[in-house]
C-alpha cells in the first residue's frame, strides 16, 4: 500500500484495535464448529420479529376520497427533524457481512481499512404513527426509528460512518408498502454495497450496514481527504426497493443527511475557511422536506394516508413540509438557510417567497443538489426573474422549480421585514385546505397556494446574531479532465404502435442482474441525457448515483439552448422536460461496482425507468463486461426471433 494511504489511515477513522474480541469473532468460532446455520436463525427468532409497540395496521379507504379532510392553516409549528444520535453498534460493524449476527447479504465493504468507521448510527425502519396536522388523528406510517421525516444524520467530512439500517417492518400490511428495503444515500460517494442498489433489498428481521466514507470524490488523486472542491453538504437518504420505491417513500421512509466541513461547519463563528452562512441546524438552518399526500377519514374514525395496492403512489392534495401541513415558523429578523428537498413521489414544486404586501421576495440560491454554486444566484420576480431553472418559460416569474430529489439551499433575509410581519412560501399549484385562513393573506395570495407561513419577530438578545453578507464567491469548481468516452441515455416511453409501451431507458427496463454501460474506474465520460425520442410528452427528473456532474450543454428538440443559471452548478438530478436533452460530464473514481441511473419520478422509476451501470477495475474487465452485456442482448434477441419464427409458421398453417 502506498505510504500516503497508510499515513491517511491515521487521519480518517478511529482504530478499532482497542476493541476486544467482537461478537462476530465469537460467532465465527461457533461457525467453525458447524453450529452457525442452527444457531443463527434460532438466535434471531428469539429477538422480537418486529417492534412490540407497532401500531395496528390501518383501515385503508377502498377508493380515493374526493379530497383530504380540511385542515386549519398555520395550526402546527414547523420544526427540523431531530438529529440522529450516534451510538456504539453491537455487534460491532465488520468489513465482511456479519452473517451470523443477522446482517443481510452483501459484498465486503470496499476500502474498509482506508476508512475505518468513526461514528455509528442505527436507523430502524418500522411501522409507527405520525400526526401530519393537529386537526387529524395520528396516521399510520413507516418511518426510520418510527419518525417521519427520519432523524437527520449530521456528519462531518473525514469521519467515516456506519449507518445500520434495520428492517423491522411488519410481516404483513394493509398498506401498499413492501416490507423489503435497500437504503440509498443521495448522492453519496461510496462503495456500491453501501449505495442502496435497487436489487439489493432485504426483508423484515435483517439489517445491513451502509458504510459512508465521508471523503470528497477524488480521494485517490488528492489525499488525504480527497478534492475539497468536490464538497457536498445536503444529502438525503431513502428507500430504493425496485418497483416499490414510490410506495415505501410515500409511507415515510426518507430523511435528510448533512455533512459539514470547514466551509460549511454547522455553526456561524468566524472559523478559517467558513462561508459563515446560516448554519445552526434547526435554529437558523432548516431542511425543508416537501412531499404531497392525500388523506382519508376511515371507518374507525382516524385520518390515514390514502393508498391503494396496484397503482402508482397517489398524487396528494396536501402539501407537507417537514411532516406538517401548512405549518408556521417564527423567524428572527436575520438571515436563514432552508435546504429545500423534494421527496416526491412525483410532484414538482414551483416555490415563490411572498412578502406582506403581496409582492415577490428574493430567495438566494447558494447550493444546487448539495453543491455550493460558485456564485450565489438570487431568484425573484424582479431583476432576477430570468434565473429560472427551466429552459421552458418558468411557470411563475421568480419561482424556484424543484423536481423530485433535487435540493436547493436558499438564504432568505428576514431582516428586511418589520417585527410582526407575515411572509409566505407559495407553491404555484393549489392544494385542498377547506378552512379559511385565520389571518388576512397578502393581496393576490390564496390560502390554497400557501406552503408555509413565516412569522417575523425581532431577534432576542440571546438568539444568534445575523451572519455576514453572503459571500459573492462560494467556491471554485474542480477542473474536469479530458473526456475518455461518450454515451447516450434515452429516456423513453415506447411510442404509440409498439408494445409494451413502458417507461424505459435505452429501450430497457430495470434488470438488477445486467449493466447497460460500464466504465473503467478513474475515467471521465460525457453523457447525453435525452428526452427527445419518440415524441416524448413526459417530464423526467433524471438522477445519476455516485458522483456529481456538470452540465455542458442543454438542448430543446435537438437545438442547443443556453444552460439556465440554476443548472450551471454541480448537480446530481437533471430535469428533462418533453423534448429536452442535456450533455453532462462526470467522473467515476475511488470505488467499484454497480450503480444506477433512473428517473426520480418514483412512479416512473417503479415502472422500470431505471438501469444499472458499473464501474470496473480495468480495460480487461471492461471488455469482459461488454462481452457479457452483448451476450445477454444477443440471447434476448434470439429468444424474440425464435418466437417470431414460430408464430409465422403457425399463421401459415392456419391460412393453409
Amino acid at each position, binding site marked *: 500500500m502506498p505510504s500516503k494511504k497508510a499515513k491517511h489511515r491515521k487521519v480518517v477513522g478511529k482504530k478499532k484495535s482497542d476493541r476486544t474480541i467482537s461478537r462476530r469473532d465469537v460467532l465465527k468460532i461457533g461457525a467453525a464448529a458447524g453450529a452457525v446455520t442452527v444457531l443463527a436463525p434460532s438466535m434471531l427468532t428469539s429477538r422480537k420479529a418486529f417492534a412490540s409497540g407497532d401500531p395496528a395496521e390501518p383501515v385503508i379507504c377502498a377508493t380515493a376520497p374526493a379530497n383530504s379532510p380540511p385542515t386549519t392553516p398555520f395550526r402546527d409549528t414547523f420544526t427540523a427533524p431531530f438529529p440522529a444520535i450516534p451510538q456504539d453498534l453491537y455487534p460491532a460493524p465488520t468489513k465482511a457481512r456479519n452473517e451470523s449476527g443477522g446482517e443481510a*447479504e*452483501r459484498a465486503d465493504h470496499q476500502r474498509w481499512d482506508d476508512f475505518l468507521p468513526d461514528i455509528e448510527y442505527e436507523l430502524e425502519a418500522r411501522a409507527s404513527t405520525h400526526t401530519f396536522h393537529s386537526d387529524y388523528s395520528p396516521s399510520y406510517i413507516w418511518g426510520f426509528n418510527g419518525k417521519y421525516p427520519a432523524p437527520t444524520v449530521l456528519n462531518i467530512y473525514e469521519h467515516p460512518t456506519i449507518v445500520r439500517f434495520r428492517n423491522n417492518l411488519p410481516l404483513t400490511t394493509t398498506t401498499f408498502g413492501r416490507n423489503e428495503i435497500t437504503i440509498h444515500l443521495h448522492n453519496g460517494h461510496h462503495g456500491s454495497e453501501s449505495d442502496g442498489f435497487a436489487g439489493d433489498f432485504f426483508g423484515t428481521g435483517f439489517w445491513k450496514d451502509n458504510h459512508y466514507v465521508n471523503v470528497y470524490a477524488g480521494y485517490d488523486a488528492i489525499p488525504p481527504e480527497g478534492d475539497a472542491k468536490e464538497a457536498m453538504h445536503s444529502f438525503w437518504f431513502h428507500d430504493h426497493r425496485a418497483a416499490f420505491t414510490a410506495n415505501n417513500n410515500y409511507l415515510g421512509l426518507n430523511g435528510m443527511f448533512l455533512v459539514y466541513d470547514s466551509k460549511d461547519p454547522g455553526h456561524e463563528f468566524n472559523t478559517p475557511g467558513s462561508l459563515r452562512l446560516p448554519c445552526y441546524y434547526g435554529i437558523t438552518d432548516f431542511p425543508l422536506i416537501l412531499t404531497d399526500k392525500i388523506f382519508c377519514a376511515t371507518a374507525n374514525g382516524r385520518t390515514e394516508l390514502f393508498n391503494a395496492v396496484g397503482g402508482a403512489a397517489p398524487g396528494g392534495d396536501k402539501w407537507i413540509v417537514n411532516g406538517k401541513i401548512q405549518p408556521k415558523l417564527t423567524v428572527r429578523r436575520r438571515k436563514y438557510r432552508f435546504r429545500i428537498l423534494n421527496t416526491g413521489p412525483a410532484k414538482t414544486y414551483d416555490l415563490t417567497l411572498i412578502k406582506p404586501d403581496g409582492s415577490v421576495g428574493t430567495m438566494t440560491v447558494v447550493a444546487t443538489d448539495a453543491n455550493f454554486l460558485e456564485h450565489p444566484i438570487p431568484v425573484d420576480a424582479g431583476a432576477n426573474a430570468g434565473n429560472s431553472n427551466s429552459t421552458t418559460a418558468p411557470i411563475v416569474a421568480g419561482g424556484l422549480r424543484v423536481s423530485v430529489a433535487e435540493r436547493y439551499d436558499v438564504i432568505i433575509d428576514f431582516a428586511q421585514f418589520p417585527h410582526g410581519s407575515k411572509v409566505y412560501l407559495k407553491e404555484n399549484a393549489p392544494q385542498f385546505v377547506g378552512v379559511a385562513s385565520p389571518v388576512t393573506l397578502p393581496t393576490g395570495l390564496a390560502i390554497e397556494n400557501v406552503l408555509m407561513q413565516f412569522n417575523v419577530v425581532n431577534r432576542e438578545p440571546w438568539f444568534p446574531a445575523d451572519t455576514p453578507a453572503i459571500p459573492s464567491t462560494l467556491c471554485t469548481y474542480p477542473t474536469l479532465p479530458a473526456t475518455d468516452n461518450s454515451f447516450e441515455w434515452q429516456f423513453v416511453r415506447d411510442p404509440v404502435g409498439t408494445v409494451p*409501451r413502458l417507461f424505459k431507458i435505452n429501450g430497457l427496463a430495470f*434488470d438488477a442482474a445486467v449493466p447497460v454501460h460500464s466504465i473503467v474506474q478513474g475515467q471521465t465520460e460525457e453523457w447525453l441525457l435525452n428526452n427527445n425520442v419518440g415524441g416524448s410528452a413526459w417530464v423526467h427528473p433524471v438522477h445519476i448515483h455516485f458522483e456529481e456532474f456538470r452540465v455542458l450543454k442543454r438542448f430543446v428538440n435537438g437545438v442547443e439552448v443556453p444552460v439556465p443559471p440554476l443548472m450551471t452548478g454541480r448537480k446530481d438530478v437533471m430535469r428533462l422536460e418533453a423534448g429536452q436533452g442535456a450533455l453532462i460530464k462526470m467522473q467515476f473514481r475511488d470505488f*467499484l461496482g454497480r450503480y444506477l441511473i433512473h428517473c426520480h419520478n418514483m*412512479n416512473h422509476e417503479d415502472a422500470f425507468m431505471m438501469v444499472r451501470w458499473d464501474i470496473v477495475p480495468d480495460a480487461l474487465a471492461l471488455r469482459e463486461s461488454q462481452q*457479457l452485456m452483448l451476450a445477454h442482448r444477443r440471447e434476448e434477441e434470439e429468444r424474440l426471433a425464435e418466437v417470431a419464427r*414460430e408464430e409465422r409458421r403457425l399463421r401459415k398453417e392456419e391460412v393453409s
Partner: protein
Amino acid sequence: MKRRELLTGVKGKATFEPHIASPGVARFTNALLRTQENQEVRFYDDLIRGKQVVVNFMYAECHGACPMVTSTLIKAYQALKPRMGRDVFFYSITVKPETDTPEALKHYAKTRRADLPGWLFLTGDAYDIETIRFRLFGMYHPGFDLDSAMHAGTLRIINDATNCWTTVEAFASLKTILKHISWADPPKSYAERWAESIARQELINKEVKRYGYRRFA
C-alpha cells in the same frame, strides 16, 4: 384438458383467504367472463379470491407482442408447474371480445401449446373487460389508460391472500419474470429467508473472489 381438472383448478376452494385489506369486488369487479372451455366464471369470486395470479391482456389475431408474451408465459408456467392451478393461476384476457369467442381462444391456446391447467383464456362483455383493464393496469393517466395496446406487454401479478400487487415487463428475461412473480409469494419464514440469504452470499463471494467486484449475483 379434462373438464374436471379445469373445475378443480378454477372453481375449487381458494387455497387462502383473501387478505383483510383486499379491495375485493369493489376493485376487481365480479364480472361474468367465459373461459376457453366456454365455462362461466366470476372474475373476483372464481379467479382472484385468495389466489396468486398473473394477468395479461392479449387477442388471438395479435401478431406483435402477444405471441412473445404467450411464449414467455409458457416458460414461466413450466418453471411454476407444481404450483400452477393450485395457488398460482395465469389469466390471459382478450381485449377484442367481439372476435375472440371461447372457441377462438381455445384454438389460440391449443395451437400455442398454452391450453394448460391453471391457465385460462378469458373473454366477456367488452365494457367489463375494459373496466377490468383499468382497475388492474390503470395508471390514472389518459395517455396510458385510453390506449388498449398500452398494457399488452405488461404482466400484472397479484396475490389476493397477501394483498400484494406488482408488475413486470413481459419481454423481460424468464429469470426476471419469475423473480417478480415471487415478489407476490406468501410471506416466507425467517428461516427460509435466512437460507436464501446464505445462498446469495455464496454467489456474491464467488464473484467478488473471481472479478474483484460484484457482477451478476
